Structure formats: C-alpha cells, structure tokens
C-alpha cells in the first residue's frame, strides 16, 4: 500500500513536469491556433543548452543557467515566429504542421550532430537526493516538489498575464477574432512573436527541470511532445489550469502503470489519453465559453 501511495505521489509530481511541458503548447494554440510539432525538441534543445552553458561558465547549478537560457529562448521563439511561422499561418492547416514537423527533424538531428546520441543529465547537486518526510514512512523529494511549485508559478503567471494585463487583453482578443483585433490596432505579427517567446520561456524552464530529474538524449523530443499534447487534450483546449491537471492525470497514469509493470508505464499513459478522448472529447476542464 505504501509503495502504491508512493507511486501516486511521484505521479503527481511527474505530472506537474508534463503540465510545464504542455503550458507553452497550450498558450500558442490558444492564441494563434498553431501546434508546434517541434515543441518537444525545443525542450531537449533547452536542456542541452543548459548543459553546454554549464561547461562553458563552470557554474555548478543548472538552475542558475536559467538566467541566460530564459532570455535566449524568448528571443529564439520571437524570431522563429516572425521569420518562419507567421508566414505559414493561414486557413491551410497543413503548412504550419509540416513546417514545424520539418523544424523538429532539423533540431533533433542538429542535436544529434552536436551532442552525439549519448544520454546526458544535468547535475542538480544536493537537491536531487534531498527529501521532506511526510510521516507514515512516506517522503516527498525536494526536487519534484520544487517542480510542482514552479509549474504552478509558471502557469499562474501566464494566467495573470492573460487576464490582468494589457498584453493579455490583446492576446485574448486576437484569440477570439484575429481580424477585428487587427482592426483595433493590435500588431498581430508582433503579438504572435511575443506569445511564441513566452512559450519558449516555459520550454527553457521545462528543459532544465526535466534535465535535472532524469537523463535525456537528442531523440527524446517526440516523446515529450506527445506527453505535452496528451496533457493539453486531457485537460481541455484553452484552459491553462486544465492543462496542468491533464499533465498530473497523465503522470499518475504513468506512475500507476509503472507500478504494475515497467513495460506498462508509457502504455498506461496513452491508454488514459485515448479513453479520455473517447469519453470527454472536449477534455475534462473545457473552457466555459465556446
């Protein structure tokens, strides 16, 4: 029983990481109806960049690297959106899907070329093994708990930006009606760039936390994209807190699957996703309007 509760608990904390993966995907889809198929590969890129910066600067903590990584990824997201993705947006959904799929192939093989196929891990130091006792023989790792707190903070700030700021109002207006928002003076190409930049900030944070949690390699991107996507669909399109909840449900499913048999870890996650899709096609926490 204790092992089972333990695995549920680790599922919740793993799921918060998936929620972090998914928040950027969810934001970009909400604002410009774009699904970035290379999303997972950018998370891997962020993890590798953190690793490279660690080597170059000699600073021990990968979390310090976020001070470089966050602005860098924001700029990368903004430029990529303006130069490559904005021209592809339009009524034809085929083009953005295929272009981001192409980007995924480019990033993945570029990482393979630059960092080889070897597994890597970010060394987080003492925090990796530290834990907080919960009583009854249960303990929760400090790092997973920090990940959950960070996921809540990231999604909370995105929610705050969306609903409490001028930028958020423009983003929501564009999401509701692109043409009218443009007529009201919203500079949509710039706004899309900002949204993509914010998504890349979540990617940077997700990359560092996932890199400290477990080892990763250049080909991990597609799996992470799929987890992010499943979290978004389970949670319901257009709801950021729903996305976090979706990630946590996915994390629990995987942890319970792994508890039954290691082979079942991934499969259980996918099965829960497919079942959710069958019975709750709009997700468990759909946005009220629509």
């Amino acid at each position, binding site marked *: 029983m204790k092992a089972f509760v333990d695995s549920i608990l680790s599922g919740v904390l793993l799921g918060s990481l998936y929620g972090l993966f998914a928040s950027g995907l969810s934001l970009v889809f909400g604002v410009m109806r774009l699904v970035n198929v290379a999303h997972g590969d950018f998370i891997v890129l962020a993890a590798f960049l953190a690793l490279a910066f660690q080597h170059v600067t000699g600073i021990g903590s990968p979390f310090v690297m976020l001070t470089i990584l966050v602005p860098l990824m924001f700029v990368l997201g903004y430029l990529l959106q303006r130069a490559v993705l904005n021209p592809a947006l339009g009524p034809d959904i085929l083009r953005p899907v*295929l272009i981001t799929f192409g980007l995924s*192939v480019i990033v993945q093989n570029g990482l393979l070329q630059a960092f080889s196929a070897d597994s890597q891990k970010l060394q987080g130091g003492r925090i990796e093994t530290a834990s907080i006792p919960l009583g009854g023989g249960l303990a929760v790792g400090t790092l997973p708990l920090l990940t959950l707190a960070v996921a809540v903070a990231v999604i909370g700030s995105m929610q705050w930006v969306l609903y409490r700021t001028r930028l958020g109002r423009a983003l929501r207006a564009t999401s509701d009606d692109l043409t009218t928002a443009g007529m009201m003076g919203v500079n949509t190409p710039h706004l899309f760039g900002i949204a993509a930049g914010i998504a890349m900030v979540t990617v940077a944070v997700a990359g560092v936390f996932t890199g400290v949690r477990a080892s990763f390699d250049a080909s991990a991107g*597609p799996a992470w994209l*799929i987890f992010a996507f499943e979290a978004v669909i389970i949670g319901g399109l257009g709801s950021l807190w729903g996305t976090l909840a979706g990630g946590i449900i996915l994390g629990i499913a995987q942890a319970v699957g792994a508890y039954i048999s290691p082979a079942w870890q991934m*499969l259980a996650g996918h099965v829960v996703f497919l079942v959710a899709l069958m019975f709750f096609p709009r997700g468990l926490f759909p946005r009220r309007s629509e």
Partner: protein
Amino acid sequence: MSAKMTKVVQSSRTSRVAGLAAIVLVLALLSAAGWADRGTLSLLMEFFCYLALAEMWNLLAGFAGIVSLGQQAFLGLGGYALFFAALRLGWNPLAAFLLAGVVGAIIAVPSALVVFRLHGAYLAIGTWVLAEVLRLIFSEVASLGAGSGISLPVKFAKSVRLGPMHRDAVLYLAALGLALIVILASYLLLRSERGLALTAIRDNELGARSSGVKIFSVKLAVFAATGMGTGLTGALLYLAKLRISPSAAFDVNWTSYMIFMVVIGGVGTLEGPIVGTLVYFVLRQYLADLGSWYLIILGVVAVTVMLRLPMGIWGTVARKYDISLFPTRRRVLFEEAGSGGGELCAEGSSAAQE
C-alpha cells in the same frame, strides 16, 4: 457568366497524350522484371513502394484534409501481419501479404473513430500517439521477438517466386502493381462525384456538410483504404528486408519521408508525389552517407519549399504552364468567349486559393 454554350470537361489534349505515354512507360517498367539485374530491381521495388506511400499520404492530406503523422502505424502493422502469418500460421507468402492489407483496413476503422474526434494539427499528433501505442504493444509480444525484433527464415523468402521469376522480380512487380493501383484508384476516385465531395470537405467542411456531403463516412472510407494500402506496402518492404523490429517498423521517419516526397512534389496533385519521390531518391543516393546531416538537409529543403513554394515543384510548374497530366479538376469551357475559349476551374480548391 452569360455565355450561352458551356460544357464541363475533365480531359485535355495534354492529358490524353500523357495517358498514352503512361501506358508505354508502364509496359517498359513491366518488362524490366525480365531484364534488369537484382540490384536495380530491388532499388526500383523500393522506389515504387515509396511512391505508393507518398500517393496515399497525398490522398489523405492533400485531398481529404486528414494530416496524419502516424501512417507508420499501418506500415508496421502490415509488416508484422506478414511475419505473424508466415511464422506462426505457416501461410504462404501471397496469403500472408493479403492478410497485411486486411489488418491495415480493419485497424484503421477503430483508429479513425478515436482520432477523428480531433481536428487539424491535433489529429496529426493523435495519429502519432496511435503509432506509439502499437510500437509499445509490439515491443511486448514475445512470440514476435518483442523489442529486439524477429527474422523471416530463408526458406520462406525463397518460396516467393512466380514461374521462372525469382524473389526480386516478383517483389518488384508487386510494388509496381501496388503503386499503379494506388495512382489509378486515386485518379478514378478524384474524378468521381465522391472525389469532389472529398475535396469539398478539405476546402470547407461546413460548406460541404451543408451541401449534403456525408463527411464522416467519406473520410472513414479514405482512411481505411489508405490503411489497407499502407499495410500492404509495409508487408512488401519487410518481405524484402526479412527482419522487422518495433522501433524500425513504427518509426515516425516513415511518415517524414512520405511528407517530404509529397511536399517537394506538390500537395494535392497526383503528379506531385511522382516528382517528389524521384527527387527524394536522387537526394538519398548522394546524401545518405552523411548520417544526421542528410536528415537536416531534407528538413531544411522541406521547410524552405513549404515557405517559398507551397505548391511544390510540380504544382508550381503546372500552374505556370497550365498543364495537368492526370486531370482531376473539372473545367468549364465557354465556347462563345472568343478565341481559345474562356476557362474556369469549377473545383473548390482553385477557387479558394485564388
């Protein structure tokens, strides 16, 4: 539109000449089974398998509006169905091959019921999840070699023959036949009323629905048919390779190659994938040794073409010179409109793009 004499045509002189040329080319290709050497035959076999895959992906994405990133699901299923029939049921190669098609079609139906709940890009990733699920399941099936895969015995491979023809020639003819059937079937489908319904769905789902198109059943039929065809192609490819493993058979790169060929050649035309497959094979011949650089180059080429030349090589040429070798669109000819006659394309897609 006050012209008094109008008629709707699908053919043109170019298309009739092209039809004739195609027949001559097919006869020449058929004869290759008799005179080409084994290396050439196996390269040609692979070419026609890839062509069939590209044409089917094009039918899904370019005509039915179903952008799938999970076609490797059906390719892998077809391969595994063949191996299962050969190794565990003791079937002959032909029966095992046909089973692959049946399995592809049967699995496509429940898959469609799930993924068709998603739309656009989400549908694309949904199909990918299905392929992942199959990869994980086949990694656990011990009787089919689990994660490390399984081989076909040489005896089975040698039993693939037809009269005096050895295995390479038979596989080549099967691949050629498959590609031709896929192209011909797409051509006939797209020229039919059902094909018009299909493109109407792609261009405007709501409009098509309100015009009485039964969207779900049309999409389902196309998805099942391509599931069958992709399964058969997978069976052929793995009958040639003689070894299958889950990570190779359900590799998303299969779909990457399909997309590359279709995008380079031109989405939404039957000629485009032929051009794209040729380009792909030429690039592969020269670049495959470069390892990951090869895939980076393919990716860069595909993204650039998608941004600069969204209609692909064939689509751009065809538009510039107004040619169509296998015309699927309907044209209205105005016979009173002066010399040469005014032409109007009556198909939805051209109207939407212009």
